[in-house]
């Protein structure tokens, strides 16, 4: 089976390389187009270089801490995770900035939406394949080197060991958690940094360029327009890619960690998990994910080789459904092959060999449902968003009010879906089943990332077409592709939130297991006492934390956007020739402002996610952190759904007006809708995606550190002193 995984990973990365090269070979169009594209590329490269140099220092510090306090293997796995995630983000952003101008040029040369869609999708597929490929490559290395070669997955080593500080853990769980933490750290900085960058540039471009000076979107006279395009790449490509890579890894490792603890804690029970079964339970998530990667590759191949129609949304949906369908089908066979003929009752499988597959299917179905719900609440084909557009007729206050109402109402249906999926998965295969549901939802992540990355590429292509003054027909093609990208982005966010919720729940169960000591082999009581004041206090603080985190993020975007607004105003004021076309704006200065703003503002929110569980744990102990995780997870899921859907609905409400409804562009309704969109921008593109990572990073940090603060915490120390 390991050979199969290796072949799939090599195949995925080779496919990514082929697509990278195929896109790069395409013509980049006129000199003007190339000059615009190279400015975007330089800006994106410069930001990621600055960001990664900052992250490198943080990675070194965390790796050193893990080395000293936990173990060398957790430290090495952490560095590997950070490297894999950073590589995927870097390559994805690179190809996105190469693809954008080629998409624009294909539209120009062919005037064919299908051919143009193919180029955008081929560019996006590089990111998708890198996310799937690098995530699995790292996991495969971790599994083979630490698990197989160093024996960590050998059943004799799946026991709780105590390190030099007296800290308990099962070594393999700590290794894979370290790997996940590496991915999470990159995702957090890419999402937060990219989110602040992109919205600062977007808002700066809109608030002065569009609103004050009245110049259209993507007009080259707007000094912030290149920064805005750079933002699409660093936020929506590198940020999104590392976010979903982290979700993917988090879901897989949560199943592996659970399997390890279930094996250990059931050791002396009446029905222990067998050595053979635990080996399969640990390796199965990687096999399942590899099959998902194969399915996605087939889906991508089919789309690239078929005659693509002029309906991009339908084509992308078809490719996604092919990948999902193949994942389900192939994995049904694989699951049966892996678990057939075994006694699975010890693992809590209620429906035989196919139990984990059924849970994964539940995850796939609930993911698709959540995506559809996101579309229903954010697409202007449906009533909620049209309602926001209609409310704009009465002014900005009602636009905001209606958007908030839509966002708040949009929370319940996905949450019920998740609840049903969790209950159903648990009743079919226990907590392992819940983790499998998360894996199922993300098993064709390669396809969802490919589709999601296509969006910002098409958006950039539209910008380049506009700035290079290509034919209106070309701009119509790129505009249509961009509009489809907005919907796919909303669906992608639904997947990210849903999978984050499921993965966080699995990680939370792992957290409870991780408090077990070496003598806990007769079972661990997975109960968090909600009437324990520590738990309750933790839950309260945890529920408030996403609000604090979101508030800081919104303020960060506002601060960076304010600097951008001032710069754009300055350039217009000091260089009136910019607007008459006699002078070229200073794009670099705007790029620098966005970069500096993002780098300055992203530290505190990122630190909150790392420091809070550690601080809470070392002061108040594990019950407090347990409550903290529950509170944060619940509150963050609601807030993430609310912000993503409200923001998406405001954005598309504005687009509905701009498409010629309620007076269209230039109407009072349009002004109100623009205000709604501006409010929603940082919510949907900065806050929402970052909240997904907040809950997962807190869960992973807690999982790694719980055995430390269970032993060393101020409250226990004071209690013991008082009792003395």
């Amino acid at each position: 089976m390991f050979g199969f995984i290796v072949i799939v990973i090599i195949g995925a990365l080779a496919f990514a390389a082929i697509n990278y090269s195929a896109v790069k070979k395409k013509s980049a169009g006129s000199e003007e187009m190339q000059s615009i594209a190279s400015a975007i590329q330089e800006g994106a490269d410069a930001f990621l270089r600055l960001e990664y140099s900052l992250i490198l220092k943080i990675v070194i510090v965390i790796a050193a801490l893990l080395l000293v306090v936990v173990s060398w293997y957790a430290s090495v796995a952490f560095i590997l995770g950070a490297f894999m995630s950073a590589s995927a983000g870097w390559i994805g952003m690179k190809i996105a900035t190469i693809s954008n101008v080629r998409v624009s040029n294909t539209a120009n040369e062919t005037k064919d939406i299908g051919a143009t869609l193919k180029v955008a999708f081929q560019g996006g597929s590089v990111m998708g394949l890198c996310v799937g490929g690098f995530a699995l490559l790292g996991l495969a290395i971790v599994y083979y080197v630490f698990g197989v070669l160093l024996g960590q997955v050998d059943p004799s080593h799946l026991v709780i060991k105590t390190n030099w500080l007296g800290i308990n853990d099962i070594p393999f769980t700590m290794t894979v958690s370290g790997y996940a933490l590496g991915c999470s750290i990159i995702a957090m900085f890419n999402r937060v940094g990219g989110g602040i960058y992109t919205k600062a540039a977007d808002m700066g471009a809109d608030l002065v360029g569009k609103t004050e000076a009245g110049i259209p979107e993507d007009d080259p006279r707007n000094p912030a327009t290149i920064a805005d395009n750079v933002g699409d790449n660093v936020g929506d490509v590198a940020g999104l890619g590392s976010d979903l890579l982290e979700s993917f890894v988090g879901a897989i490792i949560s199943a592996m960690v659970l399997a390890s603890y279930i094996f250990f804690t059931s050791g002396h029970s009446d029905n222990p998990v067998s050595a053979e079964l635990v080996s399969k339970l640990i390796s199965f998530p990687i096999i399942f994910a590899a099959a998902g990667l194969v399915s996605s590759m087939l889906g991508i191949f089919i789309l690239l080789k078929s005659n693509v129609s002029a309906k991009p949304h339908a084509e992308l949906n078809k490719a996604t459904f092919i990948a999902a369908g193949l994942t389900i089908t192939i994995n049904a066979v694989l699951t049966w092959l892996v678990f057939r003929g075994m006694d699975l009752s010890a693992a809590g499988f209620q429906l035989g060999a196919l139990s984990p597959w059924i849970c994964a299917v539940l995850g796939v179905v609930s993911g698709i449902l959540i995506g559809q719900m996101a579309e229903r609440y954010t697409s202007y084909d449906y009533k909620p968003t049209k309602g926001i557009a209609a409310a704009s007729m009465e002014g900005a206050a009602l636009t905001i009010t209606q958007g908030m109402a839509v966002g708040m109402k949009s929370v319940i249906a996905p949450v019920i879906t998740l609840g049903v999926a969790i209950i159903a998965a648990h009743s079919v295969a226990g907590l392992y089943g819940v983790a499998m549901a998360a894996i199922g939802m993300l098993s064709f992540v390669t396809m969802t990332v490919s589709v999601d990355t296509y969006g910002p590429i098409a958006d950039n292509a539209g910008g380049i077409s506009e700035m290079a003054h290509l034919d209106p027909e070309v701009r119509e093609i790129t505009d249509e592709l961009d509009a489809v990208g907005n919907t796919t982005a909303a669906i992608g966010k639904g997947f990210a939130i849903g999978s984050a919720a499921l993965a966080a729940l699995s990680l939370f169960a792992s957290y409870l297991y991780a408090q077990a000591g070496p003598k806990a082999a007769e079972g661990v009581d997975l109960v968090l006492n909600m009437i324990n004041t520590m738990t309750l206090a933790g839950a309260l603080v945890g529920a408030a934390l996403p609000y604090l985190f979101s508030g800081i993020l919104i303020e960060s975007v506002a601060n960076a956007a304010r600097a951008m607004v001032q710069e754009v105003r300055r350039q217009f004021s000091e260089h009136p020739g910019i607007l008459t076309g006699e002078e070229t704006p200073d794009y670099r200065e705007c790029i620098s402002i966005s970069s500096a703003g993002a780098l300055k503002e992203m530290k505190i929110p990122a630190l909150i996610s790392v420091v809070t569980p550690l601080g809470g744990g070392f002061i108040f102990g594990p019950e407090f952190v347990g409550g903290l995780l529950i509170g944060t997870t619940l509150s963050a899921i609601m807030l993430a759904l609310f912000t993503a859907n409200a923001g998406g609905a405001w954005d598309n409400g504005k687009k509905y007006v701009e498409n010629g409804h309620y007076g269209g562009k230039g109407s009072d309704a349009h002004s109100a809708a623009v205000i709604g969109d501006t409010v929603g921008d940082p919510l949907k593109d900065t806050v929402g995606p970052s909240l997904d990572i907040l809950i997962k990073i807190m869960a992973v940090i807690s999982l790694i550190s719980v055995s430390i603060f269970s032993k060393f915490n101020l409250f226990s120390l004071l209690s013991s002193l008082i009792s003395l």
Partner: protein
Amino acid sequence: MAVHYYLTVFPMEAMVASQLEPEQFGAYMALGDTKAAAEQLMFIEVEGGFGDFFDWDFAAKKCNPHSDGRPKRSLYLSVYRALENVPLEALGTMYLVTKDGRSLAIEKDEYKAPANWPGFALYREYCPMSPLAVSSLDPKNYGDYMTDPVNKVHAPSILFADLRVGNLDDIENSGNVGNLYDKNLDHLKDCIQSLQSGKRKMTKIVDRSNFNTSFYQILGEGLYVSSDTGIVMYPMPDRDALKKNHYDWAKSALIY
């Protein structure tokens, strides 16, 4: 450097001499000198030297380059009753300038009656007054009526445009028509209905206020300059022509 004469008709009526070419003049007037003024502008290039209302000698003497060689950008010859003192034959190309400084040039043409006359029209007057009116008169007759000294309410010359009227009962699918139909829609419907009911009135004022924005998005067949000597028309290019030949302007004008 040659001296050009421009009759601005929106947002203010004036005769201006300038050494700037028309597009440059439009951008300068819309955007200002040291800061982005962001103001729409409509003007007509005029063949100077006619009559004695405007001081052409003053213009020739004062409209000179600055000492550093920069052209003289604007020299006002009149800010009052300018239109009525320009004969129709002196009018040249009209320029519609967006607030970010892009110009659309429209050539003067002979008057053509509307192809499908629905029985009424919505007129936006630009100069010298600026009300919004509905009328059962077609553009030629409306121009004649508004410049006829027999009427108490009249002007020697008038510049106006006919506006597109969509389905006022389906404002959700209005198209990009700006803020014209945002407010007082019921009043507009009442005005149209009162004309259609045949209650003698040929015109009704919908709005007397002085709009500070133009409605390039909903300009209909064109713009008209009418005086007691006749009428000339500035036909608006259709949407296809705008998209094909003037996309940047149309985008700036919020048509696309």
